[in-house]
């Protein structure tokens, strides 16, 4: 018995160390820092809510904060709408022979990494890019369109980068769906629409919930895609945090922003779980 216990602790140790040294300790440090207010000359330090106050006093922070939240929610919803039919198709419509191959195709974009994918989108969307070239060539337009560096291009990139994280949990919960449930619903008089809304979606709800949480948090904390595809006007909240840490060297202010973002994401997820009556335990298990 003692041997088994030792083995258990030895395997647990890396996890504990990882959690404690890389997550808990830095977070505590940042949390303490977020209450440290320095003056402009960085020579006196006082303690208080000054860093949090400056967030509420400057409207650009506010605006960025709300915009980030709204666009993250929109991205999550769009990702769900785009991936759900695909997940249903792969798991329930095509035969098992092809579903593995199709799932592999979904993985492909992630072999090249986020940066390369984003540059791929830039090549497509920029003024001298593939889409503009094609449209000019067939004569639909006479001047190149500004497709890049706006909210739409940012959304495209964010949705594209998020799809896999939504589709995998949905597929795994749909795989358990017995075809006879769909047939039974149809037999009892349900239309196709009713079958989707009353049977398939409720059945896949835990997968949808966990997919949505993952996508929402990833998008909310994403930096690269909003910065490269949204351009200077993207005003993503992570950019503000980056600016505080790197450009202004104001780690205290940056920490406060970081905790505000954490509070925001927790709050939105909590609200969403309450509204949809889903439980976090079910979604992560």
């Amino acid at each position: 018995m003692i041997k088994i216990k030792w083995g258990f602790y030895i395997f647990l140790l890396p996890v504990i160390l990882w959690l404690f040294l890389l997550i808990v300790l830095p977070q505590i440090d940042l949390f303490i820092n977020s209450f440290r207010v320095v003056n402009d000359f960085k020579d006196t330090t006082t303690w208080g809510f000054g860093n949090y106050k400056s967030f509420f006093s400057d409207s650009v922070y506010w605006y960025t904060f709300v915009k980030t939240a709204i666009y993250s929610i929109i991205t999550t919803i769009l990702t769900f709408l785009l991936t759900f039919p695909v997940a249903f198709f792969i798991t329930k419509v095509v035969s098992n022979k092809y579903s593995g191959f199709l799932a592999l195709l979904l993985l492909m974009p992630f072999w090249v990494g986020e940066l390369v994918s984003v540059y791929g989108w830039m090549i497509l969307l920029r003024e001298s890019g593939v889409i503009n070239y094609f449209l000019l060539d067939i004569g639909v337009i006479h001047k190149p369109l500004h497709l890049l560096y706006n909210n739409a291009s940012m959304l495209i990139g964010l949705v594209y980068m998020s799809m896999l994280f939504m589709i995998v949990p949905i597929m795994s919960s749909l795989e358990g769906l017995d075809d006879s449930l769909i047939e039974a619903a149809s037999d009892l008089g349900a239309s196709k629409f009713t079958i989707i809304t009353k049977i398939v979606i409720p059945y896949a709800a835990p997968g949808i919930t966990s997919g949505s949480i993952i996508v929402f948090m990833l998008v909310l904390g994403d930096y690269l895609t909003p910065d490269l595809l949204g351009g200077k006007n993207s005003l993503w909240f992570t950019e503000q945090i980056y600016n505080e840490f790197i450009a202004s060297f104001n780690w205290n202010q940056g920490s406060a922003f970081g905790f505000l973002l954490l509070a925001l994401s927790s709050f939105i997820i909590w609200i969403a779980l309450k509204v949809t009556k889903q439980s976090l335990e079910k979604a992560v298990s």
Partner: protein
Amino acid sequence: MDNILEVSHISKSFKDRTIIKDLNFTVKEGDFFSILGPSGCGKTTLLRMIAGFLEPTNGKVFIRGKDMTGIPPNKRPVNIVFQSLALFPMMNVKENIAFGLRRRKFKKQEINDKVSSMLERVGLEGYEKKSVTQLSGGQRQRVAIARSLVLEPSILLLDEPLGALDRKLREHMKIELKLLQAEIGTTFIYITHDQSEALVMSNQVAVMNNGNFDQLDIPKNLYKSPSTSFVAGFVGETNKFNITTEVIDDNEITIKTKNGWKLNKQCNNTENYKYLFIRPESVILKPEKELRDISRFTIKVKTILFDGSDTKISALVENTKEIMLISLPQNAQFEDVVVGDEIEAAVHHDDLKCYKE
């Protein structure tokens, strides 16, 4: 009584494989109609065509005289109880049963009334709020049947619904289903590979083999006078022998089995037979001297297969290599039968079932 279902020259092929071949039958209103067959005989395909999940390649299905061609499952007056039951796990008992009623836009009060009276009928009063995942196998069964019956279908189709239950519960549900059907009077079409289920519950049984019915009859006739060797072998337990026959005169033949057993049978048929079937319980042990129209022989007990009222012996027919199963009545006369005993035995000529193919 009217025919509620008419299946007219129906056939079904998948690619180059023909599953159902030109099948033709009718079902009377209020019948408990069973389709009995081994797995892969096409019975589920037939059921799915009646339910509307599959369209027949040829032929038509009529329900109450109405052609069902092209009508989807959700518009047909039939409901199906699936083998897996297919209860909706995210809904409770009431929501499951109310699902079909909601689709038909019944009023809320009406739905509540129908659901509770249906639950009462299947013996699950007060189970409305229970989650279907908490129910036992038999209760889930009843919910699945209630969910279909509440829509008052013309025909209820049941696709081996007792298959997943353990033996004891299956025996119990068999009787319960039969009583329920008798009480509500809905036509049941019941699919099974278990001959006992079919024989116990049904008024009419169709034995299906290779995409067609070998015999459609009442259970008793099916057992007593099977029309083909497949039915004889599939329905009930039986001993099968490969035989050749010789005609003695106009009303007697000699049957010779492959392993050297010879016996006579009186019949006025002079054709050549290939198979002989003898049911274990049609062998008479220690027959009285004055019995007529029987073939007598001696057996030697090899094993006793004790199973209560269903006890059998495996015995060697003397002077041959034929082994057959014989029912051993559990009464005082045969209580002390032991392995190695030699017993006089006989079979009535009518119980020697011979088939040409």
